[in-house]
């Protein structure tokens, strides 16, 4: 039995250190080759071996990953399988999945891997009942998702878009099915214009999905402060490893260090910046300049102050730079005696959190504060939202491709019969999200909109 190639995140979505994305089907290795860049192509690797490399989407590196390549039938599903182990966290994992889908895999339905495993004879019969249970659980989950989505903006947009496409298609089909009628019809030119408008909307949705929301792409966060207040130490606590070089020599961090970190499912794109101060060292000066630039672009600024000494003029300078930004003032070194004027900072409307980078005290409080400032809890509490979005993305991409083909068919002078097929494909791509069939709705719309018949 040979099926198309499917993919899904196969680890629980959330905050695990590592997530796995499984690709299964006849093109699994081919798809892997399109997106994975290691020492060797996966297709040239031996079966059941692991490889280190990058996942790239549009030449942009998404993540460094470990990739397992396994040829059927000795795999979970019995099919060729590629498993990608990427860094855990919602955004990275989803980005990897989207890359896989964009490379030609289809989002797996609930229980589909298990289903294939079963159909390919990889599981014995005694397990079948439990499989059915799994599938049921998934489907009722799907139902819940549908209910959740009904109120969602993206969902509404897709519904509206689909309706527009159905109208266009009905126009075209009425023109084909009732050639004798004097229908007050849109010309094919206006239909094409309407298709272009829909295409714009689809592209906008795709863009908003690709680049937009904070929850997906993370919060651009600059860590600023005068030298040696513990910026890099804080960064390292977040990152969980020694990425920034921590020393007690002022000006150690000369460039901007970037890190994507996951705090309870929210991504911070952390910029650990060079300490801001007047410096004669040229390299350091460039670093300082970069710090200021980053600060101006950041969506969140974590300003670090040394609590064990009073505010200096350099601190004051930094505070001035913070105006108009979302800021959290982190008072470091609570393990030492507090000499800083915290009330003064708070009086400027800047919330303060006291921490000790040394003992990691106060870090949870800081994380909580960030979440509070940026995240609507409802958005991230449900894993469904995420799965669905990947499906939306896939469906919208397919829709976009069909629309582009239809428009180009029109522009190169191809006939209505062909354009109508592209249109229907575009509609059914959107319909995949909600499981709707195309032709009946078009027929219904024809009769609703047009006065046709003998």
């Amino acid at each position, binding site marked *: 039995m040979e099926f*198309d190639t499917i993919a899904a995140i196969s680890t629980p979505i959330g905050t695990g250190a590592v997530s796995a994305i499984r690709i299964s089907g006849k093109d699994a290795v081919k798809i892997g080759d399109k997106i994975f860049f290691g020492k060797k192509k996966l297709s040239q690797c031996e079966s059941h071996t692991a490889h280190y490399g990058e996942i790239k989407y549009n030449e942009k590196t998404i993540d460094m990953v470990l990739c397992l390549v396994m040829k059927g039938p000795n795999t979970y599903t019995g099919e060729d399988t590629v498993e990608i182990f990427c860094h855990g966290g919602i955004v990275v994992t989803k980005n990897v999945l989207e890359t896989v889908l964009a490379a030609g895999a289809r989002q797996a*339905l*609930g*229980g*589909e891997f298990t*289903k294939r495993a*079963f*159909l390919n*004879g990889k599981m014995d*019969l005694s397990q*079948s*009942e439990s*499989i*059915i*249970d799994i*599938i*049921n659980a*998934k*489907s009722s989950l*799907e139902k819940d998702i549908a209910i959740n989505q009904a109120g969602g903006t993206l969902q509404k947009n897709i519904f509206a878009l689909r309706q527009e496409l159905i109208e266009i298609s009905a126009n075209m*089909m009425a*023109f*084909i*099915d*009732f*050639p*004798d*009628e*004097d229908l*007050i019809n849109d010309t094919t030119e206006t239909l094409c214009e309407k298709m272009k408008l829909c295409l714009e909307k689809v592209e906008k949705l795709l863009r908003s999905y690709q680049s937009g929301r904070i929850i997906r792409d993370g919060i651009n966060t600059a860590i600023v402060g005068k030298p040696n207040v513990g910026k890099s130490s804080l960064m390292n606590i977040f990152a969980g490893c020694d990425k920034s070089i921590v020393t007690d020599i002022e000006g150690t961090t000369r460039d901007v260090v970037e890190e994507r970190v996951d705090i309870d499912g929210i991504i911070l794109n952390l910029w650990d910046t060079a300490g801001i101060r007047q410096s004669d060292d040229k390299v350091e000066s460039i670093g300082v300049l970069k710090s200021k630039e980053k600060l101006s672009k950041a969506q969140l600024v974590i300003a670090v102050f040394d609590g064990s000494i009073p505010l200096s003029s350099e601190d004051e300078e930094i505070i001035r730079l913070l105006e108009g930004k979302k800021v959290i003032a982190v008072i470091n070194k609570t393990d030492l005696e507090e000499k800083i004027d915290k009330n003064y900072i708070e009086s400027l409307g800047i919330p303060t959190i006291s921490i000790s980078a040394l003992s990691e005290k106060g870090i949870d409080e800081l994380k909580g504060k960030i979440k509070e400032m940026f995240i609507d809890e409802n958005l991230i509490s449900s894993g469904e939202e995420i799965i669905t979005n990947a499906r939306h993305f896939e469906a919208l991409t397919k829709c976009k491709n069909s629309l582009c083909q239809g428009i180009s068919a029109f522009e*190169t*002078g*191809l*006939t*209505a*019969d*062909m354009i*109508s*097929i592209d249109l*229907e494909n575009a509609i059914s791509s959107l319909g995949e999200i909600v*499981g709707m*069939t*195309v*032709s*009946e709705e*078009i*027929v219904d719309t*024809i*009769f609703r909109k047009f*006065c*046709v*018949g*003998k």
Partner: protein
Amino acid sequence: MSFLAENFDAVVIGAGHAGIEAGLSMARLGFKVCVFTINMDSVGNMPCNPSIGGTAKGHLVKEIDALGGQMGKSADATFLQSKMLNKGKGPAVHSLRVQSDRRAYQEYMKKVLEETENLYLKQAEITKIHIENGEVKGVYTHLDTYYSCKAVIIASGTYLKGKIIIGDKSYEGGPDGMFAANSLSQSLIDAGVSLRRFKTGTPARVNKRSIDFSKMQEEKGDDKIIPFSFENTDIGENKVSCYLTYTNKETHQIIKDNLHRSPLYAGLIEGVGPRYCPSIEDKVVRFSDKERHQIFIEPMGLSTNEMYIQGFSSSLPEDVQIKMMHTVKGLENAEIMRIAYAIEYDCVDPLELYPTLEFKKIKGLYGAGQFNGTSGYEEAAAQGLIAGINAALKLKGEEPLILDRSESYIGTLIDDLVTKGTNEPYRMMTSRSEYRLLLRQDNADLRLTPIGYKIGLISEDRYNAFLSKKERIEKEIKRLRKATLSPSEKVNSLLKSLGSVPLSTGIHVADLLKRPEITYDSIAEIDETRQETDFFICQQAEISIKYEGYIEKQLLQVEQFKKMEGKKLPSDIDYLNLRGLRIEAAQKLDKIRPANLGQASRISGVNPADISVLLIYLESLRQ
């Protein structure tokens, strides 16, 4: 007193478009079959428009012919005017339609039936079907005469408990002044068949002498006439014209003023009518902003003055009909010969049928045509043919013929009926076929003639001619792919004159043909190795090359579709107790009993998770 008159293999009830194809196909396959008609003069009648074909319907006629059915040949023999519709919209939606000489068509068809070996044509009303242990045994006529048989095909059209409605008057009756068939319904109900009421209607017929055609627009047929039947090449010329006129504000005012007298708006009609055949009062009410509606005047035949007034269907009272007719340009003095009427009739829910059109509950009982909830002569004929073929195959003990959605409009029609059911008389439309680029009227023979041959309805001669045609098409496609053109003066000046970019390097003829502005004919003078002259062969080669990209796209979709269709579902699955199915899905599956997973997935209310459950169940059976 009842007596056994004769033993038949099969009995067909009704000699309309469905009954004819059912009877002929069974007889031609060697079975002794009797076709009953309530009136010997109504065989093959067209009680509505005198026309065969049209969008999607033309495809059906071509497919019927490709399988070895009769409709196309008879339509070719008796046509008055022929037109290929949708010429500018691409080959997939080209549709052939002819105006027919109604009486000539009937006589032609009747003679075909009479001349067919094994076929018996009798005038009698079948009042009762004899069913024992869920199996058909025979039929009784209104005279209590008994005929035994192993299969019965019901093709009762609009006759079952037919009721004519005109304004506030209504009476029992069939179409065109025939008697209704009032007894058979009860026999079916007794057998456990559930019936329902559908409605349709037809406009008035007017005497040609009373029409002022000078006020109307003449509608001519095509210069080049393409026949329906693949066995015909030249079928002669157009003999008549049609005429176009319009309703106006005055017409609409009369209708609005008298709406309360319409049985539909007064609630006197219980049957469900088709949306694509709205009465004029329906159009005026629903599309009130439209200032005029088209009225086509179509001749009923060469031997009569009767003209069919297309677009003027109505069930308003006779006095209103006359008044509104006389407001229309050219119809001011129109003399109505037959008044427009609505007709209500009993029909079956097609969900009770298998894709073979056999009843799930009653072995040997088949339905076809309007009885199955469709509308249209072509839809009826298509089902009659399939029911006849399947009844024959069953009697032979062979595998049934189930055409799928990817190979034919006929398959799409029947799949829609038995999978989705219908809430109104079902009409075929091109928009109903998702594979319409593949299912063209021009290639119906390539799709279906091998099937017709295998069944035994296509003769050896015809099949050999078909094979040679196919071979020539392939040869010509190959040649076009191989032949090259160089950027010569001659080539480029022709391309310029066609509005196409001149060549700078050599090109395969096939690649040039893919340019939308280039046609096969337009490059004849530069395509020097061309020898093929047969129109149908050149046309196939041209379409195959020109639409290659889209055809491939559709073939990929078909491949996915076939995978699901290939997974057969046993007919005895206990859906109601199958663990994992949702209740709604289980009930629908239990009622419809899909033949395969693909069909199951098209049932509304069955979702992908339910399909997964079925897949797993199938696998457990296999192990």
